[in-house]
């Protein structure tokens, strides 16, 4: 470029002081950003993308220190600037928005005042006009009734609204660079789109440069001009969006692109064979898989008119003698009368945003929760007649098992991996012999591709993917008929997700299980499931084959859902305008 880049990072290395000595978080990172450009930094966990951003704004943790290289913003060397100098820059020239918007706002301060604080600090408002300027900002980020929302507290606002408030704080002083660190994590797909669209609109209007840090390639493709890919603290590739996706140069980039599911990916595309740590399937197994699936006539699961109501806690104090207003509901219908069926050997996807009732439904099907009314008939027996509290003792317990979303949370931190996997063997199969248990646990570990030496480790000593495998091993230990998977990969890195999905597919075929796959991500669901049910507000909105629902959604809600997914077609990248939806 003729003019020096707006943001220029040259050979930056940052070390962190940890218990085990100095750890290099980022190594020799160089990247440039031009004014008004949108740069995406993409990488999985541990790639160092956040550390780079924090160094630019000077908010590195105490334990971190830049040891080599420099970062220059508009001529100012931020890596050598004083804290006072940096404080002047922050908010005024460089702003940042974070993930977990509600936690990132002061919980006991009105949101309007938090916007005022930034305005007053940089001299852009006086005590008299601060409030009106704050309300102006709230309007700009499209919050309805801004005068009323000025005096709201973060706990009264939804996640999406909290993120808008953060954007308002960040943009209040009209900075020239905005750093967005995974700003949509934890938000619904439709809210994510709304948030990112808002960011794009506001930053384009002010010709702001943006650094978007994300693990989601699709989002980077949709909103960025250029992308930098990072792996393990190093920059692996940097290129304009179209070029990155049509001609990825580095093998890691290619791996990432392959692993991100799009509307036309196949399961085998996601990762090379053998990536799941398992020996490649023998010729017979491949033949069996290729052969026509056996006729599935047996009805495995039937859900009839399922309803689940939760009582609403009254927010306002009510005196015993005051009348309850008629229109105020006293219960919340999480599941509002749904019915569906499943055949043996089938894989059914349950898709929707948070609060749609899919997790409640899956909890009821696995009998962790009792329905308010309705029946669940599993393998001929009406299992809702048995209360959830005592279901652990029923023989049906071992036929329905579950894989959970958060692998860390679903493993007892004080049990080794082997102990966790052994639990169902001891409780449900009643095996007492220690040697037999040990053998079976090793078998199961081999089945899920978990190296044997990891069996004696505790959850905090395992990686995310390894913990997920332990959870899967535990679930399949008793050879269940139906496996409910509640967002099993949403907490995993995309490359790990690819491998786990392939593993799940193989297990399904090998063990003849049926799956209910609950997720918010239609692209992921499509890979494993033939049929899909879309839910919204406790009701079933649409059902059909996965491809049908994804490519030709019939209902308006489904269409909104599909549209909101940032996806990319590498082939269509040649015409970038068309690809951005």
């Amino acid at each position: 470029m003729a003019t020096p880049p707006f943001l220029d990072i040259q050979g930056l290395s940052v070390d962190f002081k940890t218990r085990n000595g100095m750890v290099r978080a980022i190594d020799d990172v160089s990247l440039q950003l031009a004014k008004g450009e949108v740069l995406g930094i993409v990488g999985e966990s541990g790639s160092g993308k956040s550390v780079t951003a924090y160094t630019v704004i000077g908010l590195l943790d105490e334990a971190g220190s830049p040891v080599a290289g420099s970062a220059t913003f508009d001529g100012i060397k931020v890596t050598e600037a004083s804290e006072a100098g940096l404080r002047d820059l922050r908010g005024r020239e460089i702003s940042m928005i974070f993930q977990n918007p509600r936690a990132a706002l002061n919980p006991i301060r009105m949101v309007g005042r938090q916007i005022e604080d930034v305005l007053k600090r940089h001299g852009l408002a006086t005590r008299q006009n601060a409030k009106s300027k704050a309300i102006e900002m709230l309007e700009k980020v499209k919050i309805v009734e801004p005068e009323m929302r000025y005096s709201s507290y973060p706990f009264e606002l939804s996640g999406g609204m909290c993120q808008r408030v953060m954007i308002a704080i960040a943009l209040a002083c009209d900075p020239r660079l905005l750093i967005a660190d995974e700003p949509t994590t934890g938000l619904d797909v439709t809210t994510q789109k709304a948030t990112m669209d808002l960011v794009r609109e506001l930053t384009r209007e002010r010709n702001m440069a943006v650094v978007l840090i994300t693990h989601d390639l699709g989002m980077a493709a949709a909103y960025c001009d250029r992308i930098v890919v990072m792996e393990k603290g190093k920059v692996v590739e940097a290129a304009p969006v179209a070029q990155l996706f049509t001609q990825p140069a580095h093998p890691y980039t290619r791996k990432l692109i392959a692993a991100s599911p799009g509307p036309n990916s196949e399961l085998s595309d996601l990762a090379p064979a053998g990536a799941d740590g398992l020996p490649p399937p023998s010729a017979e197994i491949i033949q069996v898989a290729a052969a026509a699936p056996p006729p599935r006539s047996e009805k495995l699961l039937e859900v009839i008119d399922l309803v689940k109501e939760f009582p609403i806690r009254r927010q306002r104090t009510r005196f015993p003698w005051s009348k309850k207003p008629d229109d105020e509901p006293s219960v919340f219908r999480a599941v509002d009368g749904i019915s569906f069926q499943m055949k043996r050997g089938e894989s059914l996807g349950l898709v929707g945003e948070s609060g749609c009732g899919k997790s409640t439904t899956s909890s009821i099907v696995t009998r962790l929760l009792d329905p308010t009314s309705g029946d669940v008939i599993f393998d001929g027996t009406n299992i809702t007649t048995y209360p959830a509290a005592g279901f652990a003792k029923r023989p049906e317990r071992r036929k329905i098992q579950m894989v959970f979303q958060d692998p860390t949370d679903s493993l007892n931190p004080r049990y080794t991996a082997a102990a966790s996997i052994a639990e169902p063997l001891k409780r449900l199969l009643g095996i007492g012999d220690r040697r037999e248990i040990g053998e079976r646990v090793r078998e199961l570990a081999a089945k899920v591709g978990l190296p044997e030496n990891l069996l004696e480790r505790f959850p905090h000593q395992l990686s995310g993917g390894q913990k997920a495998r332990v959870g899967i091993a535990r679930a399949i230990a008793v050879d269940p008929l139906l496996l409910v998977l509640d967002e099993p990969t949403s907490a995993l890195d995309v490359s790990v997700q690819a491998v786990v999905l392939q593993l799940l597919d193989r297990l399904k075929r090998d063990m003849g299980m049926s799956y209910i796959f609950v997720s918010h991500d239609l692209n992921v669901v499509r890979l494993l499931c033939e049929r899909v049910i879309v839910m919204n507000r406790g009701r079933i909105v649409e059902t059909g084959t996965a491809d049908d629902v994804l490519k030709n959604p019939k209902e308006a809600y489904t269409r909104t859902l599909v549209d909101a997914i940032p996806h990319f077609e590498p082939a269509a990248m040649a015409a970038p305008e068309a690809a951005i939806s």
Partner: protein
Amino acid sequence: MGSRLIQVGRRLAQALPSVFGVIVISFVLTRALPGDPAVYFAGAMADEESIEQVRRALGLDRTWIEQFLIYVGNLANGDWGMSLSTGRPVTEELMQRLPASLELTLLGLGLAVAVAVPLGVLAATRPDSWVDHLCRLLVTAGVSLPTFFTGLFLVYIFYYLLGWAPSPLGRLDILYLSPPQVTGFYVIDSLIAGDGETLGAALAQLVLPAATLGLFALAPIARMTRAAMLGALGSEFVRTARAGGLSSAVVLGTYAFRNAALPVLTTLGMVFSFLLGANVLVEKVFSWPGIGSFAIEALVASDYAAVQGFVLAMALLFVCVNLAIDVILTLVDPRVGLDE
């Protein structure tokens, strides 16, 4: 604002079961005390006939429930029995001695807060510095100190060895007369009366016992302040504030400290509970004529009406203090009342 008032009202209402529980336990204690309740409620001067009268008045011949109701009625009327040793109503004795204990406790608490809070804040903002290490040492040592021992130790050093402090024999040296009674707090009363000498003497006597109590309260307050500040400073919203370039004064004060103050305030309630207990010990060491020493004398003399009165009074005082703290928290923290 309306909803806040309702929340405050709810908090007040929630204190009622505590008061009820306190009265029940106190009732159980009186009936469990050795000896005949009628005798010690009647007083030392009573003869057989009046003891009988008292017995009937207390309802000792009736059912538990009726006894309890009579008991509550008596309490409400201010009839807490007669002190065996002094011959006066227990309520009178308590009221007369309360200001002495309160003056001591409040001064001790004030000293503790004045030192502990800044110390905790400094330790949190300068981790691993000498302030931080000093704070941590003080905290660990402080919670290990037996109050009565600290008091004695201070007396030994400052009175016997150094001669700086006056003799630990009560609120005022015998040379001085107590100031005219307005509040019962000698410091305030002598200020009102404009009597500088008495003020000086009263303060001199207060120093050591208040310091003892203060040392005792210092540790938990400093520990909680440091922990709460560390938590607040490491939180995500402080990171957002820093990312906005806010000055360190605003970040420390408006963002970090105000949030950290909430758990510290809660701790103050617990500390006050410990202080009321420590009060008894300190009053014995320094011969302070407060409620605590009254209770000790009563115990020695088997004056059980007085003991029960003391326990009840302290409990009610504590309930009030907790209530006050709860109300302040309700007003300051908008999230209170969320997960009931």
